[in-house]
């Protein structure tokens, strides 16, 4: 669905250099701290910025050669950019109807009712959560094969975040072959949605792993000095000194559980990965 090969984009104080691959029908998460390069990567995929070098292929086409009609099959929700706040949702419906060949007005209206989105009020008077919902609904209502979501849950409370994720889950269920690329710095959002995760840090992908493996094989080991000294550390990816000894990240939880039953093992999470792999 999306292939990025050695995409390089240089700014004055930042350089992006990533490769990634999203197979058809896969839900892929892009996580990283603010300013790590998530938005730049997404903007390159959408052709909003032009790479200095490298290749970005979306649905079989180089982004540089992408035509307006190719974007009919993509649904986009961006964190800090949407329809003008001076429009109402009714206006948005009219625009989308004339923008996308396959816009499903009934579906859109149905979701608006379900999530209490007012149709006649100008968007700039909406709450943050409501604005985010309008953005996501606008992205999914033309049955796109590919959804690209940049921080769709950013700045929202737990409930609104959950609503957004539920909308996406339902969309996935109803459109079996669609793919999603979603970025977030709130990783728990992605743990129960994405098939695989790319961790981006300072413009580079530092980890790519199936979510399933992160949750089942990765773990935090809490080890005291003594055990740390005698323990086989071949599967420790990163360690941090703590009061009690060491905090270690491993991708072979089973190995340590079986061989060192005295070690405290905590299930891994994407947050742990970010903290351990990108922290100081």
């Amino acid at each position, binding site marked *: 669905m999306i292939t990025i090969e050695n995409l390089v984009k240089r700014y004055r104080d930042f350089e992006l250099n990533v490769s990634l691959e999203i197979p058809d029908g*896969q*839900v892929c998460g892009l996580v990283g701290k603010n300013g790590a390069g998530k938005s730049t990567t997404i903007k390159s995929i959408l052709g909003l910025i032009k790479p200095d070098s490298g290749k970005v292929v979306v649905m079989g086409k180089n982004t540089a050669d992408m035509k307006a009609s190719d974007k009919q099959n993509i649904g986009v929700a961006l964190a800090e950019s949407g329809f003008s706040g001076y429009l109402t949702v009714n206006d948005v419906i009219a625009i989308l109807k004339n923008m996308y060949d396959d816009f499903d007005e009934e579906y859109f209206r149905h979701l608006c009712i379900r999530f209490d989105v007012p149709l006649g009020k100008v968007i700039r008077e909406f709450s943050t959560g409501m604005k985010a919902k309008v953005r996501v609904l606008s992205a999914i209502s033309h049955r796109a094969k590919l959804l690209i979501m940049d921080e769709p849950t950013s700045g929202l409370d737990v409930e609104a975040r959950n609503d957004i994720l539920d909308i996406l*889950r*339902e969309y*996935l*269920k109803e459109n*079996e072959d669609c793919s999603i690329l979603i970025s977030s710095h709130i990783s728990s959002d992605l743990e*129960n*949605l*994405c*098939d*695989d995760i790319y961790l981006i840090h300072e413009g580079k992908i530092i980890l790519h792993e*199936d*979510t*399933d493996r992160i*949750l*089942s*094989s990765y773990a935090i080991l809490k080890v005291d000095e003594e055990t740390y000294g005698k323990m086989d550390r071949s599967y420790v990816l990163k360690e941090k000194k703590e009061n009690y000894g060491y905090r270690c990240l491993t991708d072979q*939880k089973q190995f340590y*559980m079986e061989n060192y*039953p*005295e070690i405290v*093992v905590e*299930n891994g999470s994407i947050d742990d990965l970010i903290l351990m792999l990108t922290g100081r």
Partner: protein
Amino acid sequence: MRIIINNNSMVPIYEQVISQIKNEIIAGNLPEGQILPSVRALAAELKISALTVKKAYDMLEAEGFVTTVHGKGTFVNAADLQLAYEARRKAVEDDLANAIQQGISAGLSKDEIREIIGILMEELL
């Protein structure tokens, strides 16, 4: 079909899915020929990734509990009694392994653990 996922469990999520579907099949709650929810439908319901569900379905198929017909869905096979027995036995083994693991963590010796099991056997049977 009722599946409950424990996100804090040390048992990987796909294994939780596998064992619970197996139990449903063995218990007869999922009759032969019954279609399982689509990968994405079950993923959405359990709030887990589709790949996890797919992995679980693949392993169930490898073990002969279900058959996936491409483009149609995943169907329950006739519960094989031998398979069912092995599955139950495996579940017991897993539980005992967990218990023993805990015993070791608690600083019990092998003999002590054997003794506990012996006493429990006497009491329960």
